[in-house]
């Protein structure tokens, strides 16, 4: 119980500190704004806008999440080791493995909240742009209001109470986006016969969930790297790892039978393709629960391996 209390205290603080960083708000606002504004920009210019909006929104969510995972892990762990706050904590009766895992959980929690915001924005944007040359304003307006109101109210609150602006703005953005989804759900979309009968394309959430697993892997990798590296190399290595992971089938697939090195690289690289199931959405093919369970198991095993390496690395890390 005592260890659980320590774990929760460190994890909670890591999550809050990650969300309080201006970069977190900046990336979150950019991703949400990019997703929400997409129907306004695309609906009157290109055909097949619904699919483009959906694919672009999920891609934005994934790239933003990847950036935030690497940055938050680096800031939360690597920078704290250098700044000295970690030394103060580790001078207390806190095992290093618990400290590391709690930090990872905290960063993972922050990324989970970002994912909720991005997926809520995606649901609204896809509903808004479901029909070419027409917009569903019952989805666009609440989303735009959320985007505008969150920073404004957070600014006023900061002016009044002097409490951090960035975290207030993010939490308000998340709350308003969830409220926007609820508000839009109260109205039947005039376009629903075009795309989805139940007000929202809920199947997007399944792909979002799979991409969320992938972001969990990114957090684990970034945390393991943060035991030894500063923020910038973590960002570069994470981006490289997941880029090669995305192209793993294409680059390594033909060589798997003949080359041991190719098989080893294929096993080590995160198989991002397995989580990118937009083809299933295009073909309106249901994603089986067993596939989601297997993907979750793969992500958990890969993340556990990264975290184990991170713990081993951190145990021998000196904190000066």
């Amino acid at each position, binding site marked *: 119980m005592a260890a659980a*209390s320590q774990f929760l205290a460190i994890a909670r603080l890591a999550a*809050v500190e990650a969300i309080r960083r201006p970069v977190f708000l900046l990336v979150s606002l950019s991703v949400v704004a990019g997703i929400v504004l997409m129907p306004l920009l695309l609906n009157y210019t290109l055909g097949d806008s619904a699919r483009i909006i959906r694919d672009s929104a999920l891609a934005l969510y994934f790239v933003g999440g990847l950036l935030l995972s690497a940055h938050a892990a680096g800031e939360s762990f690597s920078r704290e080791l250098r700044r000295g706050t970690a*030394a103060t904590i580790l*001078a*207390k*009766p*806190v095992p290093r493995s618990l400290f590391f895992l709690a930090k990872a959980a905290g960063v993972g929690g922050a990324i989970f909240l970002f994912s909720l915001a991005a997926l809520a924005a995606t649901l609204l944007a896809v509903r808004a742009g479901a029909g070419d040359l027409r917009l569903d304003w019952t989805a666009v307006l609440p989303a735009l209001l959320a985007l505008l109101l969150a920073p404004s109210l957070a600014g006023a609150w900061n002016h009044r109470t002097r409490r951090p602006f960035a*975290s207030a703005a993010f939490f308000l953005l998340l709350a308003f986006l969830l409220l926007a989804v609820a508000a839009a759900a109260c109205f039947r979309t005039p376009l629903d016969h075009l795309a989805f009968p139940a007000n929202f394309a809920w199947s997007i959430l399944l792909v979002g969930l799979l991409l969320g697993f992938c972001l969990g892997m990114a957090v684990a990798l970034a945390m393991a790297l943060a035991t030894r590296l500063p923020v910038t190399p973590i960002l570069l290595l994470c981006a490289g790892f997941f880029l090669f992971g995305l192209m793993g089938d294409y680059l390594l697939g033909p060589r798997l039978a003949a080359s041991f090195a190719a098989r080893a690289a294929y096993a080590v690289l995160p198989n991002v393709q397995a989580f990118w199931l937009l083809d299933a959405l295009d073909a309106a093919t249901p994603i089986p629960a067993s596939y989601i369970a297997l993907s979750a198991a793969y992500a958990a095993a890969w993340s556990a391996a990264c975290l184990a390496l991170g713990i081993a690395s951190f145990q021998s890390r000196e*904190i*000066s």
Partner: protein
Amino acid sequence: MNPAIQASNLSKTFRDFWRRPRVEAVRSISFEIPAGQVFGLLGPNGSGKSTTIKMILGLLFPTAGSLEVLGASPRSTSAKSRIGYLPEESYLYPHLTPLETLSFYARLFRLPSAVARERIGQLLDMIGLSHARNRPVGEFSKGMARRIGLAQALLNDPDLVILDEPTAGLDPQGTRQVKDLILALAARGKTVLLTSHLLADVEDVCRQVAILFNGRILARGPLDSLLAQKDKTTLTFPTPSDPVTLRKLLDAARAALGADPSLDHPRQALEPYFLHVIETAARDSAAPASGAAPAAPLAPFLQK
């Protein structure tokens, strides 16, 4: 009684990326700090004081030699639960308030919430920051942040208190309070290890010191025996109203010793004089302070 800290041939060499020796920060030092003593680790910048402290806390690993802290390995959490550590810089989360900061550290010490609440209240009163308990510590002056750092080091009522430059950044009142605190902790049988560049502060509170230079201990022992000038004696008496009496005394001393004695009025130290002036002014002024409030008595849980 077992020593609180026992170091034997302790060495620390920092290496570069290629594992080549870069800096030999501590070179085969041995020392023992008996439980219940106030021990000062002195030395110029780069002499190895902070490296030694970080090895004692299990943050750095010795290259050679052995180290025992409270009868256990420095990395053991059981030993760490009995240690309070004030780092050289007050590394705090700037967005947290003093209340949140101390609550966080109380959870790391696994204190029951009722005990934590009581101690946090007492410590905030003791460091004079009760009125600022809900302000983010990022807005604090260095001295105020230092007081929070001191409070977090005392939350667990530690048996061993390690204070790295405890009076750095504090005003004279805060400095006096820290010194009183160290003496009070020692009176309760706690062991205090402190480093400081302010030698007058060390002299006020330490019974034993070790002087480090270039990673080696150059001098070690009880402060009284290290500093006493055994070939000289001071005699203090009330200033006579008649100058002739003084001259007679001097002549007698010169005749008896065969040497010229020196004559001077003893001076009080600047610190008590300053504190007297400030305390008098504070008593006469009703204006509230925006920084730390005047020093309060020791937290009750630290007096038991």
